[in-house]
């Protein structure tokens, strides 16, 4: 494998039993990424479960005992495979509504989502919910896989009808760019190989598409954003006066000598050096983790953000956001919660619940609370100012999580508008 291989993170999503896990299994199997011991283990398990001869490929990702007992996916499984063109990190997500939060987990870091639909069933509520979440968390690329084509006689009419219905729904969310592929994950048609049954389909099979989709533009290369993670004070003889600000460049570019603004204080200074273990750099860009030293001594701590003065983010104690409520206990508007946004942790209040979105119709409803899996627009107030961009502009500085202080659980995912 060449050393410049690119990494693509993608997920499978869609309704229960649409064949997400089977598709991953098929993809791994037909790209020769399954090892012999894994195959023999799932073959044994399939036989013990009285499978009718065929190996159940979904067992490759459904690794928990409870998942195998019930034949469903409960939590995301991550799988890894590589072709000579790319390395892939796959997140196989659960279709059950109860486990939607695990789908959100996987979607939040994905470059691409494969949304599956069972050709016999067409677009279902959970298909819409997952599509909505995919658009909300801004997964840059979507592929629609109309699966189980073997069960509908590989009918082009059925495929066309489902694609049309799906495209109409997706268009309401502003999703226009997508590829639709007919397939049978069970038989392997249009997964890695074209197969014999879908000759009317002109496009490429799934793997070819995954290998070639352009992902270079998924990172914001313009606005420099550098949340300070950790202040490095070695306090040794050799580095007596060294004071470095460690962090990861979330977007944009920085060079030694560049002027920066430190937020929220608003003070300005210059980057003296870009320090790394492998030596100092002249310039660095997202997603590198580096250490910056500055020309002036300024009081800076974790949670501050370095930006370039030409492209400023917002600094505010109030903002609006789209929220996915992930907790079994409903939102309590009277309580304070905690927000973690970049490297900053602050107390917050829900000032207003603007509306809840019906995932089927995308209509807005007023609501007094939020229950698990609800998606809503909210107005928030925080105790200290946050330094942020809108989520559509910047996935890193526009996102936050909400934590319940009593349980320490992560109860919501937020995207700033």
């Amino acid at each position, binding site marked *: *494998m060449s*050393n*410049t*291989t*690119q*990494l693509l993170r993608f997920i499978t999503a869609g309704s229960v039993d649409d064949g997400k896990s089977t598709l991953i299994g098929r993809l791994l199997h037909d790209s020769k990424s399954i*090892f*012999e*011991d*894994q195959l023999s*283990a799932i073959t044994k398990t399939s036989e013990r479960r009285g499978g009718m001869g065929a190996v159940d490929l979904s067992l490759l*990702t459904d*690794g*928990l*005992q*409870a998942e*195998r007992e019930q034949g469903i996916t409960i*939590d995301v*499984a*991550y799988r*890894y495979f*590589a072709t000579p063109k790319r*390395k892939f*990190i796959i997140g196989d997500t659960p279709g059950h509504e109860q486990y939607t*939060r695990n789908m*959100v*987990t996987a979607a*939040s870091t994905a470059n691409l989502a494969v949304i599956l639909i069972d050709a016999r069933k067409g677009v279902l509520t959970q298909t819409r919910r997952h599509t909505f979440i995919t658009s909300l968390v801004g997964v840059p690329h979507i592929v629609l896989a109309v699966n189980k084509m073997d069960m509908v006689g590989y009918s082009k009419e059925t495929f066309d009808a489902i694609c049309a219905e799906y495209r109409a729904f997706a268009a309401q969310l502003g999703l226009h760019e997508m590829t639709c592929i007919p397939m049978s994950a069970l038989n392997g048609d249009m997964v890695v190989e074209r197969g014999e049954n879908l000759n009317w389909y002109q496009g490429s099979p799934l793997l070819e598409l995954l290998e070639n989709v352009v992902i270079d533009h998924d990172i914001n*290369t*313009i606005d420099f954003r550098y949340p300070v*993670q950790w202040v*490095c*004070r*070695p306090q*040794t003889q050799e580095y007596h006066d*060294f004071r470095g600000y*460690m*962090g*990861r460049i979330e977007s944009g*570019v920085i060079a030694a000598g560049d002027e920066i603004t430190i937020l929220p204080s608003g003070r300005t200074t210059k980057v003296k050096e870009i*320090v790394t*273990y*492998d030596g100092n750099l002249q310039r660095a*860009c*997202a*997603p590198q*983790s580096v250490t910056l030293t500055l020309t002036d001594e300024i009081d800076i701590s*974790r949670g501050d953000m370095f930006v370039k003065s030409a492209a400023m983010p917002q600094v505010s104690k109030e903002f609006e956001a789209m929220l996915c409520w*992930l907790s079994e206990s409903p939102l309590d508007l009277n309580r304070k919660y905690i927000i*973690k*946004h970049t*490297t900053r*942790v602050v107390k917050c209040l829900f000032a207003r619940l603007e509306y809840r979105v019906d995932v089927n119709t995308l209509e807005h409803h007023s609501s007094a609370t939020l229950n698990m899996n609800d998606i809503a627009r909210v107005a928030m107030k925080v105790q200290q100012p946050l330094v942020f961009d809108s989520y559509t502009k910047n996935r*890193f500085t526009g*996102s936050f*999580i909400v*934590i319940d202080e009593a349980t*320490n*659980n*992560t109860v919501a995912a937020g995207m700033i508008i």
Partner: protein
Amino acid sequence: MSNQPFTHLDVLESESIHIMREVAAECKNPALLFSGGKDSIVMLRLAEKAFRPARFPFPLVHIDTEHNFPEVIACRDKLASDLGERLIVRSLDDSIKKGTIVLKNADQGRNAFQSVTLLETIAEFGFDACIGGARRDEEKARAKERIFSFRDEFGQWDPKNQRPELWDTYNTRVHAGENIRVFPISNWTEMDIWEYIAREKLYIPDIYYAHEREVIRRDNGVLPVSHLVQPRSGEKVEKLVVRFRTVGDMTCTCPVESHARNAQEIIEETAITRITERGATRMDDQTSEASMELRKKEGYF
């Protein structure tokens, strides 16, 4: 404008550094679990990249089964002292003496008991976060685990009820007595590890490279002869040229036949191997379909 070509290794490395710094910044009393194996040696390099020129903001901790290969223990001690970092070692023998581990027989495999000593060590030092070198490609239960994996006051993992983990915004919060296991190299594969060892020219125990070794065949596997594994009647000692893909408990870690003498040759072998790392080398993982999941629920790494 900034399209400097990043390799997948650069991306993985930066992700791991970011994770380690989050632990340092948000956890009160973290530790880095360090065994002297290849994954934990990669973790040490990542920690150097994350924190130098300062010292690590956590000690290294090894839970010693006393069933380790001597070459691995020697490497563990050398690396810790070369780096000038603090190494804490706690032994399963201490737990056995205390009576908190009861063995059926003295020579049995000890991996399953590591959780007991680990939990005792966590309690002794009050660690609220343990950074470990587990990878998701190793095993189907690991494939399901979060990067920041919450454990209750009994050290247990609840796979059906994991915290959501969104973007790279990690929730590190725990109550007293609970802790977080953190896996910065979750997304690395065996291949990535070897490519990184080659790229960074990391020093690893030489039993990872091909060498001649006395082995016996037992229970469908090849076991290295040592003071813990002696031929039983009817078993024949053979000399094979082998290397280890993992270095665990000597009583149940099998070497693979190989002539790969350096990282580059191992990369070439890894590219064409048809058996997973654990499938080829760990007898104790094959006892049941869910042995790793069960061990993790009990507090294992």
